[in-house]
């Protein structure tokens, strides 16, 4: 391999290389500091923060140009701009969160963040077929498994178990969508089959399901809430927000390409269904955030509200394939929830409680936390009005339904009110739990990085910095139907003018099977009573 080839490989695979290097670096740091100074955990945390920031800077420098495109035989890894942008901001966000989280496992969480953002970068660099979606789904499962390790907590284990089931169900949905998409071209020339519009609707449903379930859109919000309840904040943010948003970018590109490829309106009630689910999710997330008193749950419901916007964006991508508003709101959504996550982890770490009733006066006690939450609220409100607010309003216009738009606006306002409620609690008289905690000097590395990081992320989320995500290019069409893989030579891949048999129901409409198969003589473990 030439020097240029090595440099290209480093540029293309930079995040994954740094993530892999952490596997050797962190044990070495722990060994070095652990033996003599007993501060191995703290130094490992600094090490992983430096790696996260280096990933961020490296991704920014390497960029997504042709110099970073790696070709090995048939494999092409072509980093995308949204992928690199997510790594650039993800490195900073997670470095600050890991710093605020402190503790014995902070370095491990940083390592998980390194692998998470590397998986996102890699997935968005290979937008072909099912590989990127499979990579993100399995990365989500692996991250939730790794984040839940370390202690035998039944709640965490059950959350991971739920994730395992979800991931295993979503991949068949993607493959079925892929098969339906291939059938569209045949249906266009053979009237005896399903119409292109109905096949496109089936394809849209299959791929939208990935975002709807992974992001936690109503009625699949339960998984997201459990993730935020059970997993550490780095794992929650990656599995519940970052990876679903990366999936949303891929899916929206696919939906745009699909909607552009058919001339008739999309069959079924796919678009109204997704719009309704999005508006319902926003309202549900906001009302639940207002009704709950645990800050972990409130941040979880904020993430549910953000999932509502992702659903509205998916519907807009189907309605108006050429409009980029749907992809513009993804990144601000990720950053806003990450800011709330940063606030949550720093408050939880400081006061050792997540109950609002025990957190009275937290903002008066630690002003830095108040600044973080205020930054998050400003980003949530997308103030001052700019590109992000315009993109959100444009999404509602593209939806074309005034009732849905009103519901979404009301939901967003209620989300802001729920966040302001958290801030107001911080200015009430100080509770005992808050009073007992020592005040930290302002000139402290953690406090400075907390304030600086929060302001930077809020500026990016609210659109003050010119940060925008253009989405990945459309996935290339699925391979042509070819019997080449079969053992025996099959018939020609060309569609016949007259089908040999009448179209029959889908293979999935199979005869009923027993709803529950209990293994005989099972000695296995049941996850939930």
């Amino acid at each position: 391999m030439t020097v240029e080839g090595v440099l290209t490989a480093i540029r293309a695979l930079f995040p994954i290389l740094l993530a892999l290097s952490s596997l050797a670096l962190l044990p070495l740091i722990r060994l070095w500091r652990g033996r003599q100074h007993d501060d191995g955990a703290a130094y490992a945390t600094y090490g992983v923060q430096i790696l996260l920031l280096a990933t961020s800077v490296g991704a920014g420098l390497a960029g997504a140009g042709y110099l970073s495109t790696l070709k090995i035989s048939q494999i092409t890894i072509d980093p995308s701009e949204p992928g690199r942008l997510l790594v650039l901001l993800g490195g900073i966000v997670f470095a600050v969160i890991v710093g605020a989280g402190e503790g014995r496992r902070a370095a491990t969480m940083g390592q998980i963040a390194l692998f998470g953002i590397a998986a996102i970068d890699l997935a968005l660099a290979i937008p072909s077929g099912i590989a990127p979606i499979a990579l993100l789904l399995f990365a989500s499962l692996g991250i939730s498994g790794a984040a839940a390790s370390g202690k035998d907590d039944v709640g965490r284990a059950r959350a991971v178990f739920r994730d395992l089931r979800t991931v295993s169900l979503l991949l068949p949905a993607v493959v079925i969508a892929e098969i339906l998409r291939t059938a569209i071209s045949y249906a266009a020339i053979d009237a005896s089959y399903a119409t292109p519009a109905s096949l496109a609707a089936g394809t849209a449903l299959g791929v939208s399901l990935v975002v709807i379930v992974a992001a936690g859109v109503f009625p699949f919000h339960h998984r997201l809430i459990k993730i935020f309840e059970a997993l550490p904040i780095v794992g929650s943010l990656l599995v519940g927000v970052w990876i679903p948003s990366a999936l949303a970018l891929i899916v929206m590109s696919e939906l745009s390409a699909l909607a552009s490829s058919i001339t008739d309106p999309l069959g079924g009630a796919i678009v109204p269904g997704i719009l309704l689910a999005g508006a319902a999710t926003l309202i549900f997330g906001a009302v639940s955030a207002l009704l709950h008193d645990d800050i972990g749950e409130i941040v979880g419901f904020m993430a549910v509200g953000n999932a509502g916007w992702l659903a509205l964006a998916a519907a807009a991508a189907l309605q108006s394939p050429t409009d980029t508003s749907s992809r513009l709101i993804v990144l601000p959504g990720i950053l806003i929830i990450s800011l709330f996550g940063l606030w949550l982890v720093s408050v939880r770490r400081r006061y050792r409680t997540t109950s609002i009733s025990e957190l009275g006066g937290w903002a008066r006690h630690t002003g830095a936390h108040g600044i973080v939450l205020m930054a998050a609220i400003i980003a949530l409100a997308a103030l001052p009005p700019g590109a992000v607010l315009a993109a959100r309003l444009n999404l509602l216009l593209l939806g074309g339904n005034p009732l849905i738009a009103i519901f979404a606006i009301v939901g967003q306002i209620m989300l802001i009110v729920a966040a302001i409620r958290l801030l107001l609690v911080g200015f009430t008289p100080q509770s005992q739990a808050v009073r007992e905690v020592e005040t930290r000097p302002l000139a402290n590395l953690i406090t400075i990085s907390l304030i600086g990081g929060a302001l930077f992320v809020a500026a990016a989320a609210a659109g003050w910095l010119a940060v925008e995500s253009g989405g990945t290019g459309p996935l290339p069409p699925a391979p042509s139907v070819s019997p080449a893989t079969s053992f025996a030579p099959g018939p020609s891949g060309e569609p016949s003018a007259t089908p040999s048999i009448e179209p029959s129901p889908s293979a999935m409409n199979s005869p009923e099977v027993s709803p529950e198969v209990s293994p005989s003589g099972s000695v296995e473990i049941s996850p939930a009573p």
Partner: protein
Amino acid sequence: MPNLELPLVVLAILAGTLAVTSAGRGAWVAIALLAVTSSALEFSLADPSHIGLILRVSAIGIGLIITVPEGLFEPGALRHDLALRTLIATLRAHPVVVASAAAGLLLGLVPLALPIESSSGALRAAGVALLVVGLPPLLTSRFIEATTRAAVVTLSGTLLLRTSIFGALDPLAALAIGAGFACILLVGGSVASRIANAEEEQ
């Protein structure tokens, strides 16, 4: 090699059915057999370099080696659990699953709407049968290890169905899917042991 297709399809469906109906040794051996047979069906002819086959089998192999419970290879117990009589008794105890597998096989053999019409019949039949067998326990089972095995069966079926239409996966997708199989087995095993430990502590 073409004459091996039918035995491999039958073996894969049988292994998938046993993986979701039996417990302990029988189920783990069935999963290993399913991994080998479905990978051979998916990759053998389409991929002359056999990279996909090697990746898939080694990924599932690593996952299984780390996950399988202790004492799995105890010769006496293994012989008893894998005796033909035991296997038949297990299948007879779950007639609905066996009927589902047979129905899935027949359904898959019938050419359905395009583009499935021009796909490989045997691979499609195996894929549909494994999907029909794996999906119900994946959706409803309360047992972690059974759900993990059902997930492997369902994914194997999905990939066989996909291969019957689109051909074998490219190396990168094969790597991602292979890692996914290993991930499912490892995470399933880790969750099961964590809940067992927590229950023991209680």
